[in-house]
């Protein structure tokens, strides 16, 4: 798994960049103010010689001056803030890539919009975006309020039931950026992360082509057994695997689950070991998650794992 | 040397209006109650603003009972006024009389209020519109009932209880609160009964 950043201090896109400029402006201004005020305070309390007690007139002038300077600084910061706000808002583009994201307790349902429905792509908890292109993210919620936040790319925006919110993103350099739900959304709010993979437009095209394919048919008998369990067993009640009869809609789409870097919305890396642990006992890894312990036998579990690994 | 003194023993043992602390207590109470009514009405406006049609999918409330109650409420200001005046003249007999009359009015519009709820044409759990009108009406009814109870107790006190200066002040404050209940009703009436018709 590549190195992961999740920091507002390492902007990787224009929106985050202009916000971090504002941050540094604020940081230095406020630090200066803090130092000056505290210095004044220290001088005030450390004065010993009382013969030079200033007259109330002097005090009044200095207080009024200080207040005046405060107002001026604040207006400066206000202006900077509003200006940044406009700059960030103006970054929308017409030929943007449109992605629908629906928040669920506690995972992200991702749909790449396309006028032709057959070309739409459904995935979960992982976005791939082409570098240097504006992304229009449409945020909805299926249950409670969540908040979409990938600090390296932009500030957060809430997903509110009954509304659709918009967020414009752009990544300037390739990389893997981690995001996380930022509005308390229930027992597993802490484990509701998503990964944004920014890659060159060629890589992105390759990826989305692959995602449009249905699941490859299993080759080995073990994998076929695995598919049987997925289709006839508990998995299909909630999960969808395009190209099979598994058509559940209430849990993450598994058609290409093997291509993702994490499982259970960023709770663990997507390795056979963690996957086995997750399927065998989800409530141990993510207590309260909607995935039940299915009571598969060890042999069934191995088969399912073998099949899932073919879903690239 | 002994310090100088201000002798207050000659000062009266009671006062009316904003001189008395009861008045200020009542005023603070009305400030809070008023704020609650304001919040409910703001919620009403907010929900109305989010709804394409208003009332959404229901008939506006029937005007008759609500309007009748408005008339009765406004009329009740009269005995209320006399009661207040009597209280401030320390005129026990008239105070008792007018308090009783006011009580009759009070019971009157609590009864009418029952019909009002039935004339709303919507249930509280039908949709947000129903919820907010039921809550507005219910919250005002709560004030009606408490105020009627309050007056009833006070009236009983005036007849049987040991008499104190404070009871006259209380009576006059009670009347003031009565005005408050009447006045808050007007916006509530406007929003429950008229706003759906304007929209």
């Amino acid at each position, binding site marked *: 798994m590549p190195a992961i950043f999740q920091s507002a*201090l390492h902007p990787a896109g224009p929106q985050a960049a202009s916000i971090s400029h504002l941050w540094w402006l604020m940081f230095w201004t406020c630090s200066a103010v803090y130092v000056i005020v505290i210095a004044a305070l220290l001088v005030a309390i450390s004065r010993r010689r009382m013969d030079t007690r200033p007259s*109330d007139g002097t005090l009044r002038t200095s207080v009024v001056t200080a207040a005046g300077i405060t107002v001026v600084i604040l207006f400066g910061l206000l202006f900077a803030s509003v200006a940044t706000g406009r700059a960030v808002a103006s970054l929308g583009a017409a030929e943007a890539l449109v992605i629908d994201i629906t928040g669920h307790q506690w995972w992200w349902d991702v749909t790449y919009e396309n006028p032709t429905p057959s070309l739409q792509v459904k995935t979960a908890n992982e976005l791939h975006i082409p570098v240097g292109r504006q992304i229009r993210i449409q945020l909805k919620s299926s249950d409670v309020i969540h*908040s979409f*936040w990938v600090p390296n790319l932009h500030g957060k925006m809430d997903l509110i039931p009954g509304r659709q919110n918009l967020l414009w993103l752009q990544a300037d350099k390739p990389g893997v950026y981690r995001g996380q739900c930022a509005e308390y959304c229930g027992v*597993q709010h802490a484990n509701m992360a998503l990964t944004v993979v920014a890659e060159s437009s060629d890589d992105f095209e390759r990826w989305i082509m692959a995602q449009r394919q249905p699941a490859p048919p299993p080759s080995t008998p073990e994998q076929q057994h695995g598919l049987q369990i997925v289709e006839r067993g508990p998995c299909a009640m909630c999960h969808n695997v395009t190209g099979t009869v598994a058509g559940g809609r209430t849990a993450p789409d598994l058609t290409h689950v093997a291509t993702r870097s994490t499982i259970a919305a960023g709770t663990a890396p997507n390795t056979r070991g963690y996957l086995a642990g997750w399927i065998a006992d989800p409530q141990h890894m993510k207590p309260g998650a909607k995935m039940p312990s299915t009571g598969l036998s060890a042999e069934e579990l191995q088969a399912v794992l073998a099949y899932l690994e073919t879903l690239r | *040397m002994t310090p100088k003194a*201000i002798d207050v023993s000659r000062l009266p043992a009671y006062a009316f209006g904003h001189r008395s602390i009861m008045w200020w207590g009542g005023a603070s109470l009305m400030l809070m109650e008023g704020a609650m009514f304001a*919040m409910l009405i703001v919620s009403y406006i907010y929900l109305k603003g989010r709804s394409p049609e208003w009332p959404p999918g229901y008939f506006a409330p029937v005007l008759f009972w609500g309007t009748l109650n408005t008339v009765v409420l406004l009329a009740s200001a009269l005995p209320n006024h006399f009661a207040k005046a009597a209280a401030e003249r320390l005129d026990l007999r008239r105070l008792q009389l007018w308090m009783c009359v006011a009580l009759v009015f009070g019971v009157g519009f609590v009864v009418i209020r029952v019909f009002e709820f039935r004339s709303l044409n919507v249930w509280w759990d039908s949709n*947000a519109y129903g919820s907010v009108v039921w809550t507005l009406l219910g919250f005002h009814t709560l004030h009606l009932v408490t105020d009627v109870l309050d007056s009833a107790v006070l009236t009983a006190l005036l007849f049987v209880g*040991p008499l104190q200066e404070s009871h006259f002040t209380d009576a006059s404050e009670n009347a003031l609160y009565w005005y408050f209940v009447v006045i808050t009703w007007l916006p509530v009436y406007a929003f429950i009964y008229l706003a759906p018709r304007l929209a």
Partner: protein
Amino acid sequence: MMEGATADPRLEPAALAREARELARTWREPEGFIGWFSRIDHKTIGVRFIVTAFCFFMLAGLLAAAMRLQLAQPRNTILGPDLYNQIFTMHGITMMFLFAVPVVLGFGIYFVPLMIGARAIAFPRLLAFAYWMFLFSGIFLYVMFLLNVGPDRGWFSYVPLAGPEYGIGKRADVWAQLVSFTETSGLSVSVCLIVTIFKLRAPGMALNRIPLFVWAELVTAFMVAASMPSVMVASGTLMMDRLVGTQFYNQAEGGDPILWQHLFWFFAHPEVYIIFLPAQGIVSMIIATFTGRPVFGYLAMVLSLVATAFIGFGVWVHHMFTTGLPQFGTSFFTAASIMIVVPSGVQIFCWIATLWSGRVRFATPLLYALGFFMVFIMGGLTGVMLAAVPLDAQVHDTFFVVAHFHYVLIGGSVFPLLGGVHYWFPKIAGRMLSERLGKIAFWPLLIGFNMTFFPQHILGLMGMPRRVYTYPVEMQWGALNLLSSLGALTMFAALTVYLVNVLVSLRRGAVATENPWGASSLEWSTSSPPPPYNFHPAPTVTGREPLWEPDVAERPVVIGLSADKRDVLVTQLMDAEPDHRKEFPEPTVWPFLTAVAVGGLYIGSIFTPWAVVWGAIPTTIGLIGWAWPRKGNQPRHLEREIAHRHRAAAEHA
């Protein structure tokens, strides 16, 4: 008024002593089991408020320690998510509803009447009722917590998470009813404070002579009265959504989750100032006392308080910047949120000017006041950052915000409060706190505080959200979290020392004189602790700093208040000229019984709406018992007066 003042035999020491004995009899607090529940003296109730609130402060502190233990390292498993979510919610609501507001009001309850030279607080029975509601709310909350019904939806209880579909079980209802309890209490106290400050001031204490702390409490009381109704409406509608199926917050039926956020934050932002303004009042008193001069710029200070209160009602939306509100609207709230810094700034500059021109005595209370500057100013500055919409979009709901409001609330409120306890302990307990222990507690507290919360700024910028019970190893948040937890440990130790100091000094502290600090306000003119009747003879005022005025010796006093009944002098609003005497009620157990009835109503209505109906019956009985006068104390002169008036009317006719 002052002209009418004359020397009087009733002021002979012997006469005064005799009257004092009678006053002590009249104002005595009832003894015994029932008596304990019947007490209504504002000093008793005030101490009860303060002590109870600090107990909840300790409980919430323990909860905080548990959280820091869980977050000390990544993927920690000491607390599960379900318990952790209850704990952080409990911590929040305990600190906000059961500590901060009650304690600042408690200081007001105890000291406002003393500072304005009043014999008692207005509506003492209502005050007692308020205390019982407060106590019950706390017991109720923690019993529920022990029963695993502790609220777990955050102190803000956003819908739909706390709504009927996703707020499973009764936990969210417990939150809603806790709010009903505490708001009932807070609103009642604010009535008492407003009326006391307006009508019971000592003769001569015109509005422009009111001590700054009293001004702060007055403004606070008005903020309570104006903001708490909003959250009452919010919690009430939430209860109805959950219990009887109203649709206020159901977007599918015309409701809206955002309405909740408006209603809640319209209360919850002013709440911050409710907590923080009285603390500013405390800072003013402490600074004046330990610089030996009045706080510079009285008028500016008062106007800043009022301005803060007004602007404080215009900034709530800055908690909702990430909900996708239209840009224009948000920039107005940005402006308001930034400009609210100005009044606070003016106050800080005035305090610095006071320190600059005064003779500073480094007693412990002043230390805490200085700690307030160090910490609070940083909180204010990060507040400016949060007011900027784009920056807020990054740090909102992250640990940056956690750091910010702990700097504001602990710095702006807890430090002054701890200083205030040091400052007023002699007056309340009649003994001095140990200066040495006080200083020993202060420094680790200041260091530990910054150790705990400064790293959280960085954590927030590094992308760590709030309200997470754990975090992955690879996020490199571990080190700073550990540091933060160690800081929490330090604070814990410091506060333990502080507590020890209080407990030890209660027994062994040096006995306090009337005015150990040489302060200027009226509470220091009576004995420590004050008698039940506060002052005898009742004082008058001729200036802003009564005990520092040159005429303190020959200033006239008030006589003629009867000592055989609870006679209190009511004065006029503006200039506090004597207006009339009011007999105050005797102690009674009815407020307690009423509180029990109302409590039963509140708790019952968690389970069935009918509780409101049958709970109303005992409540009404309680209120009648409360209001019904004792038999046989009908004043003769009243009958005479009534008869006289009737005769006059008859002759007139």
